[in-house]
């Protein structure tokens, strides 16, 4: 393994991202116009957010080989935590001096990530004993349960903490000192700072002894155990890390969208995350931004160019083409777009 070489790639990526960010800042909407409505600020931000989530998911699914069909639940928990502790702070008894301070949403973000990570650790220790698609189904079940609990106002409609089906509206923007990290062109830097940091984290893990242990785990758990890898705890820790990353991304999303709705975090969004991971390349950290960008770009393309913004209603044809493309990509590039550059033939692995 080339130990230090990932650093150059990362710097190149960071430079590219910075360039795009500065361009959009200096000429808002310029990139969008140039690309015919494809590279909107919305798309760039969402790519960044999903990159954070996917780094964690790729570590879990691609490296550790543990399926997760409920990752959107952790994303949602982070988003709702940020929303509840800012918008519903009064109901929770948090003094306004704290709730309106500029540093409070940041504190919430960090604490939420820790809490979600701890939750995932505990749950992980229980369910990660499962194998193959049984694990996938358990994570699916978990994801749906979290979604239903969020949708049902945590079972306490009188407190109205999560806002039920319609969620919470009016999440404040992030601030540093007195400066609001807005408009969208500025927030781009916040999100991509997080995305680049998570990429660095992921690459670090992969090229470390932990990464080797993960690959051993993926190949054969029994064998890994026999060479001294503490399989159970390693799996749980990676699960927790992926959950924490998803939570951070969720918090950043809440401050971006300002409206947090349970439907964003259900079963289908979890599937979309798996799709992004698979399309980009599950077993690659760089597959995270690639997968996110490809899928989002495809959706954007279908929405604006195939159907046109005027006057037809968007969304009608989109799923058919999207689903068909997913099938084709999985049939011929199961290693994801990242791997197709390295190997000519698709990488078949049996489990």
């Amino acid at each position, binding site marked *: 393994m080339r130990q230090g070489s990932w650093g150059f790639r990362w710097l190149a990526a960071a430079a590219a991202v910075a360039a795009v960010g500065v361009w959009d800042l200096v000429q808002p909407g310029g990139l969008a116009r140039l690309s015919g409505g494809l590279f909107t600020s919305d798309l760039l931000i969402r790519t960044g957010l999903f990159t954070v989530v996917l780094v964690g998911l790729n570590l879990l*699914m*691609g*490296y550790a080989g543990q399926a997760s069909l409920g990752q959107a639940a952790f994303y949602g928990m982070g988003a709702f935590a940020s929303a509840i502790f800012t918008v519903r702070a009064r109901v929770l008894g948090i003094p306004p001096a704290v709730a309106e301070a500029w540093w409070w949403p940041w504190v919430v973000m960090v604490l939420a990530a820790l809490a979600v990570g701890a939750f995932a650790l505990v749950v992980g220790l*229980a*369910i990660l*004993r*499962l*194998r193959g*698609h*049984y694990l*996938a*189904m*358990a994570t*699916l*079940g*978990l994801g*749906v*349960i979290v979604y*239903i*609990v969020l949708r*049902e106002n945590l*079972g306490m409609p009188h407190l109205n903490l999560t806002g039920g089906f319609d969620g919470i509206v009016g999440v404040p923007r992030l601030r540093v000192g007195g400066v609001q990290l807005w408009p969208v062109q500025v927030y781009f830097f916040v999100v991509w700072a997080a995305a680049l940091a998570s990429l660095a984290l992921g690459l670090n893990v992969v090229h470390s002894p932990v990464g080797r242990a993960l*690959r*051993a785990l*993926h*190949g*054969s758990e*029994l*064998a*890994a155990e*026999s060479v001294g890898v503490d399989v159970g705890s390693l799996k749980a820790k990676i699960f927790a890390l992926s959950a924490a990353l998803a939570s951070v991304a969720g918090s950043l999303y809440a401050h971006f969208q300002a409206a947090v709705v349970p439907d964003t975090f259900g*079963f*289908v969004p979890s*599937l979309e995350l*798996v*799709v992004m991971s*698979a399309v980009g390349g599950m*077993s*690659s950290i760089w597959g995270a931004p690639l997968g996110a960008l490809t899928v989002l770009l495809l959706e954007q393309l279908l929405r604006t160019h195939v159907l046109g913004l005027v006057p037809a209603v968007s969304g*009608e*044809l989109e*799923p*058919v083409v*999207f*689903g*068909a*493309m*997913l*099938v084709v990509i*999985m*049939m011929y590039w*199961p290693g994801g777009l*990242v*791997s197709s550059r*390295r190997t000519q033939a*698709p990488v*078949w*692995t*049996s*489990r």
Partner: protein
Amino acid sequence: MTTRVRSAAEPATTEVAARTARGPREHLPAARRAGPRARLGGVAAFVLLGLWLLGRRLGYGPGEYLQLLVDGTVTGAVYALVAVGFAVVYRVTGVINFAQGAFVMLGPMLTVSFFRALGGAGAVALATAALAAVAVTAGLAMAVHRFTLHPARGASALTRIIITVGVYISLQGLALRIWGPRPQVMPAFTTMQMADRLLEVGGVVLQAQSLWVWGTGAVTVLALAAFFEGTVVGKAMRACAVNRTAARLMGIPVDRMATLAFGLAGVLGAVAGIVLAPSTRPTYDMGLDLGLKGFVAAIAGGLVSVPGAVAGGLVLGVLESLWAGVTVAGFKDLFAFVMLILLLLSRPQGWLEAGHE
């Protein structure tokens, strides 16, 4: 980028796994020793007790419980059919077919369209439309296997699952395109009108459609059993399920059996959807929920056994109905997934007989 760790331990691993999964079980503690059905029964009994206690607090008497129970067997029968579809496909191909929900949706939607084309009135027209819809769905299911899963048969299980997810998304999108977002209407089979005949038996109010659900479910499952036991093709399919390699060596066209299994799943799904349609107003997105719950039922029954899937479906239906009777409306769906997790946790090494892949 990833290197597959090939160690000498590999062959031994599968052997160990095989031995642990099948038995002998003397070294396991008593709770683990019980077979999957006994365990399912245990979990179900425990849950029943809890629900009964909750119901008592609401002042439910035996009449209310009976009503909920009966209602539960109706949805349970539908879950059972969907679950059997999952089980059959999984046994023969090793794939968890996420597109199964799409078959459940296509059955009634196609029936409504064919029915309208045939004039929109009369039991004969409806029956013909239903049969045509089942046939089309089965054909579509087989095409799905032939053109997407068959070429990808060497891929990992997760990849194949994602392929079926893609198929589901496409089919749901197609349904939206063809039929629009509004729910369709199918007349109740007994009255051939929107309003169904109500029967009152021993204090329990029953829709006549429920009789259709039970009847069709029973007939379908029995027909399937007869197929597996009695016909050559059926037995060949069972052989594939037990041991693919051996079956291939015996000259059984394994891949064609896989396609046929999908066809059967299409039939089962379509029938389930059609028979439920008069009471639920079929919509383009009805398949997701039913698919997931049918899947939970299949897992409950061990995923590989047809009678297990039926039992799982009925148990899930009844328990879910009792739960719905005692809980706040929105939490109803929670039950199936909590049950899923409990079931999975009670047998972490999986519910599958080894030697499958």
